[in-house]
């Protein structure tokens, strides 16, 4: 297996995290601080933002300029989309999804959250828990991000007061309990001065917990923490039928990525939807034969028996079957400027499988500010609702809370080919 890494002795892989908050919370400054203190910012970039800082009449370098956006955004004075940024500590590589915080960008936050292992929610220490804090917390919980960090920022503006921090923590825990959020870390912080981001600083001696970076370095990815069933949606079938090479004559490789769980040579498998059974003959990654494979690995599976399998089918372990269904209940986030039309048919994409779908009903719409349930006849952009859907083809599902891969789907409008909705199966 080609997992050796010659340039670092320790490799804790890769962690994707999301930062939520508005510009006012110091989100850009926090990201700038992380990039700067982990030396991800190179001299020419720094020179460029020094120039801009001066041009805008600022004395110190404004680290938030590191996340300054596109011309199209500056023209409108807003952040319009998720930006991805990268840094590494030598032991772990990080991908930051930087999502704009305003209410009208719920869809961007859901997009950024969908691939995150951890979320950092920023609170301005002077303002405490706000409506948007509740909204961000609800969304990270909805999208089932495994780890949640609440960064109480701008502690420098409240004299690094422990009382202020404790009050915010108590307020937060009160409403988090109502949402069912259990695992939260709180960090007092001054991103501006760099306290408790990468360095501890010398103003927060009363806080004994980890810095933000220490938390990031030790957070597990979701696949490690939960027992998972093996799920292998088939992406592509390799049948070389090379007449010059008789060995390849009968070769049928089922290509895909292990979405969850693990598989070993000899394991008994079931193919969906056919229900046919076989055993794993080989697990290939180019020239290597792997004794076993686990979540997030892209591999090719060879089976003992000749079974007709195509893209959209799913290979699972016999005895670990998902639910095969043509009716799903889901939380649906509507992403399109064109409202959901209950009379129309849409296309659902779930793993590698497509199916036509129709709305069977809207149970309720979430008021994501007050966190209450409302009745609704239609859904517009940024709405989140509990819906039920009827499908033309069966899909093979697990509840989203158990499996983010087999519990998620997107909705496509075939008249425009746009992605118009994102669903999480209940």
């Amino acid at each position, binding site marked *: 297996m080609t997992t050796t890494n010659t340039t670092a002795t320790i490799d804790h892989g890769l962690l994707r995290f999301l930062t939520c908050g508005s510009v006012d919370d110091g989100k850009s400054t926090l990201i700038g601080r992380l990039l700067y203190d982990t030396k991800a910012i190179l*001299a020419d970039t720094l020179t460029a933002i020094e120039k801009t800082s001066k041009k805008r009449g600022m004395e110190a370098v404004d680290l938030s300029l590191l996340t300054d956006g596109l011309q199209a955004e500056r023209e409108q004075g807003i952040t319009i989309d998720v930006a991805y940024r990268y840094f590494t500590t030598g032991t772990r590589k990080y991908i930051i999804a930087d999502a704009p915080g305003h209410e009208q960008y719920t869809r961007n936050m859901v997009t950024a959250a969908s691939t995150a292992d951890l979320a950092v929610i920023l609170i301005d220490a002077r303002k405490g828990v706000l409506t948007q804090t509740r909204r961000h917390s609800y969304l990270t919980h909805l999208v089932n991000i495994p780890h949640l960090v609440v960064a109480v920022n701008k502690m420098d503006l409240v004299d690094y007061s422990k009382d202020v921090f404790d009050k915010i923590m108590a307020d937060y825990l009160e409403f988090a309990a109502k949402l069912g959020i259990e695992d939260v870390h709180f960090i007092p912080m001054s991103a501006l001065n760099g306290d408790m981001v990468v360095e501890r600083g010398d103003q927060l001696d009363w806080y004994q917990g980890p810095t933000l970076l220490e938390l990031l370095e030790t957070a597990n990815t979701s696949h490690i923490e939960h027992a998972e069933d093996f799920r292998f949606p088939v*992406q592509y079938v390799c049948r070389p039928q090379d007449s010059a090479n008789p060995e390849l004559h009968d070769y049928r490789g089922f290509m895909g990525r292990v979405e969850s769980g693990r598989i070993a040579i000899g394991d008994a498998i079931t193919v969906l939807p056919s229900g046919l059974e076989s055993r794993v003959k080989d697990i290939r990654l180019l020239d290597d034969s792997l004794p076993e494979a686990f979540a997030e690995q892209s591999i090719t599976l060879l089976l003992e028996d000749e079974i007709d399998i195509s893209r959209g089918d799913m290979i699972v372990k016999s005895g670990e079957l998902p639910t095969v269904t043509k009716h799903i209940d889901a939380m649906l986030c509507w992403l399109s400027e064109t409202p959901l039309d209950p009379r129309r048919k849409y296309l659902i994409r779930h793993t590698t499988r497509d199916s036509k779908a129709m709305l069977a009903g809207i149970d309720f719409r979430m008021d994501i500010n007050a966190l209450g349930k409302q009745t609704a006849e239609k859904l517009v952009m940024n709405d989140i609702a509990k819906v039920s859907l009827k499908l033309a083809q069966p899909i093979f599902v697990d509840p989203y809370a158990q499996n983010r891969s087999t519990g998620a789907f997107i909705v496509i409008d075939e008249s425009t080919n746009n992605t118009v909705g994102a669903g999480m199966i209940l």
Partner: protein
Amino acid sequence: MTTTTKQTLSHLDWLESEAIHIMREVAGQCSNPVLLFSGGKDSICMLRIAEKAFRPGKFPFPLMHIDTGHNYKEVTDFRDKRAAELGERLIVRSVEESMKRGTVVLKSPDESRNKHQSVTLLEAIEEFGFDACLGGARRDEEKARAKERIFSFRDEFGQWDPKNQRPELWDLYNARSFKGENIRVFPISNWTEFDVWQYIEREKLELPSIYYAHTRPIVVRNGGLQPVTDVTPARPDEKIEEMLVRFRTVGDITCTAPVLSDADTIEKIIAETATTTITERGATRLDDQTSEASMEQRKKEGYF
């Protein structure tokens, strides 16, 4: 019966696996894709990923290079050699053909042809009816790319609209398009320059020789290093010096500059990359420095 996964992929394995998954989605969803291969280091990694994604089968797409006619011979020779070794079909379309057709008109004979690649690319897409182009662009290169989707929709004119991108959630990619439209797909979006060099080392990938330190005639122009070539001769008042340099990125001769370096092995390049103080494009791309928004602008006009 369930089991807990204890292993974690190393960051390179994770990035590789993500890229393989993306390429297989293109193969599964698109009817006529193409992989853009320039002979540069990023697209060399792309070919390795394609091997891991599709062997022992053939690639489900041809390779294509949009040649400005101003590329280093070491790179175009390497391009041809690599395609032949893999036994895959290579299509080359040149900006010069577009100039002959009259669809590319240079403002002056010495204007860089780099941005005009967009025209030739769109013409080639139309000629072959490609519905998807796989490219080796990375989000760490530039801030317009930092916001671009992995599956990036382009309209009939090849235009990218940053304000109207398709939402991209989980690993559920939407490559659907109508005839004449096109999806650009960037499987190594999440890689950094450092990841690319580490991958080249790990996979022992061969590179065109000019990525390694070598001596070549250079003039210093506007503080940057300008190689002296037939396309980019020295000006009368400039002093030509023999310098030890290497290229961090290769592309059109008129807009790619080398850096001073004695790194003649992959290990030395990685050590240098780990301690460099200049970004890849900052050091080497003369075309991105013309204005703050030049990449964003070029993408709106159909660039990769």
